[in-house]
């Protein structure tokens, strides 16, 4: 990552002088209608002694309860009710909580946390007790540098290297994006047994390869949508991880969600890059609403620190496609957005 950052700086310098502001190379769809929205003020009510750090993961269960996975002094997982009232902490002091990356809720209301510090995927039952873990936290440090220099060895079936996200198909199979060091998607059965993977330990930009697969979602047919962030695209696979299509007109796909119901919608965030470099706010920050086939229906939001703007959206919940809940890295907050899509459709189609 450090090395990557270093070359990133160099690339950035060149791009800055060339008058561009961001390492974004893929086109964004043009003339996409803006979807009006508002952000609910003071949505989450935190007790006086609780503070969110980087708001990394957000998800809802079937009751509308909201789960927030955050990097505060320690990584922690909180549950709120549908009105934003605090209910409880889940997994306090857990061995697997070190550096939050994603939280998702499956159709049975189990809560899944993905931690890129401990390299663990952790399943809690609805009562908040651990019922399954995949991956293993490194036992101890023999080398002070956790990721030694040199090429990454091939991945093992059950060990992750900074995993990023998890998703489930209707049969309960588990899909994990892995991640920042490996660049693959792994499919496990519902009991956590390895089935298949696509991608490898090597990043790549060919179809079916990944460069930081950063988010994942599965539709009702079992198709798998992967936010292939550093390749500036989303890749779509069938249930056996065979590539079906690529959507590359939505900027950097940081995170993805799919709404439930008979007509499913796909959301993808072209989050502004960390660091707020000059000009980056002008060309990033928006979220796209799409059909599953990749047709862009509309977009909303922009980069900024004020209420209603986005400061590096890291995760979205779209259980209700007109009420999107977003978690932001750099503003340490969760916002609930009320979309008004009818107006956008009216203005664009007619």
């Amino acid at each position: 990552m450090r090395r990557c950052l270093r070359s990133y700086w160099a690339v950035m310098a060149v791009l800055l002088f060339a008058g561009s502001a961001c390492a974004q190379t893929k086109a964004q769809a043009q003339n996409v209608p803006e979807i009006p929205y508002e952000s609910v003020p003071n949505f989450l009510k935190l007790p006086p002694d609780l503070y969110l750090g980087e708001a990394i993961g957000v998800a809802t269960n079937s009751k509308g309860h909201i789960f927030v996975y955050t990097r505060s002094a320690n990584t922690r997982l909180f549950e709120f009710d549908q009105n934003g009232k605090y209910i409880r902490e889940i997994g306090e002091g857990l061995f697997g909580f070190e550096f939050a990356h994603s939280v998702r809720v499956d159709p049975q209301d189990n809560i899944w946390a993905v931690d890129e510090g401990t390299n663990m995927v952790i399943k809690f039952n609805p009562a908040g007790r651990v019922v399954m873990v995949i991956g293993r936290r490194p036992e101890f440090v023999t080398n002070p540098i956790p990721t030694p220099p040199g090429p990454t060895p091939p991945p093992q079936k059950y060990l992750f290297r900074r995993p990023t996200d998890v998703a489930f198909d209707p049969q309960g199979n588990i899909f994990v994006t892995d991640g920042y060091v490996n660049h693959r998607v792994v499919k496990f059965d519902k009991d956590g047994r390895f089935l298949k993977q696509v991608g490898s330990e090597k990043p790549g930009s060919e179809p079916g390869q990944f460069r930081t697969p950063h988010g994942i979602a599965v539709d009702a047919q079992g198709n798998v949508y992967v936010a292939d962030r550093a390749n500036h695209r989303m890749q779509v696979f069938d249930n056996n991880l065979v590539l079906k299509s690529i959507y590359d007109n939505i900027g950097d796909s940081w995170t993805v969600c799919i709404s439930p119901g008979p007509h499913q919608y796909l959301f993808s965030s072209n989050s502004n890059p960390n660091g707020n470099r000059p000009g980056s706010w002008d060309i990033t920050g928006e979220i796209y609403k799409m059909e599953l086939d990749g047709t862009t229906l509309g977009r909303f939001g922009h980069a900024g620190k004020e209420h209603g703007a986005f400061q590096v959206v890291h995760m979205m919940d779209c259980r209700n496609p007109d009420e999107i809940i977003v978690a932001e890295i750099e503003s340490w907050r969760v916002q609930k957005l009320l979309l008004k899509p009818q107006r956008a459709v009216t203005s664009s189609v007619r």
Partner: protein
Amino acid sequence: MRRFLQICLGVMLLAGIPALAQDSIPEIPFDSAPDPLKFPDNIHLGETIGVATNSKGDVFVFTRTGHPTISLGTSRPFAHGGTRLFQFDKTGKYVREIGKDSYGFLVGLMVRVDAQDNIWTVDQMSNTVIKFDPNGRLAMVLGRKAESERIPNPAAAAPAAPAGLPGAGVQSDIFNRPTDVAWDAAENIYVADGNGNARIAKFDKNGKFIRSWGHRGTEPGQFNSPHGIAIDLQGNVYVADRNNRRIQVFDGDGNFKTQFTNVGRPSALCITPGPHQYLYTSNSNPPGDIDVAGEIYKMELNGQILGKFGKAGRLMKEFGDVNGMDCRSDNEFWVAEMITWRVQKLSLRPQAQAAKK
């Protein structure tokens, strides 16, 4: 680095280079209130890096305490904790902790309260400037904490410095050991950045980057550890350019106006509210020595020195490396001290000084 500074200081003292204020500067009589803050039994100050009051007289104390830790046996080494922020009422009674277990509290450097009573903290390890609203809830974050630490910190793994002049930093809210924050009447935000960079960064009230100025150097408009910042009612920006041993004054766009070079090594600044504003600056002693410096100067905004008080030391009415000052009230003056792990509440008696003449 410290040894280097000490050597520098020694050389300069021997050579008589710094134009320290003359001995004729009047001493301002003052007292220090015993036990101005009442602590719960389980709260202890560590290095006290900042103290600030709000319009109600509540006192906010930012301190390095608890246990900064690095967790190993993970994909990368992660840093946790080490600094806390406490609120007291105007009688010194403990009110609450703010930002408990905050992601951004590692090695604090300053706390300030703005004109709307928002509370702002600056942390030089997490490289964040955090705004809390008057209720103590998070309102804005500038900067980003590094995701993980480099341990042991091999030079080969260090990120390359950004291109451009040394210390000029990146044109954004990427800080390198920021030190202080201030605001103008339009609520624009100015960050002194800092011990790693050598610039002042300006943001609008929504946190959008506007500009930054300065880089490492000794010329006017250049900095060497800009360690404090304060803004007067006209929007002039006063920067404690600590290791250049001067205060520089700029307009709000960063145009250099003047500098004051006769107040030692300015480590902390504050400006009183109107209508007649005064500037206070601390010639703080280095953390390793209580036998030099330590006095605080009271000045007119044009640089004229009106008086001074205090000296380095560990006793009451002595100062142990003052890092933060609050001068909201003319008579009650708060100092936060680095090496003596305390705050003092001082009553200045400039009238007594005048009467003695």
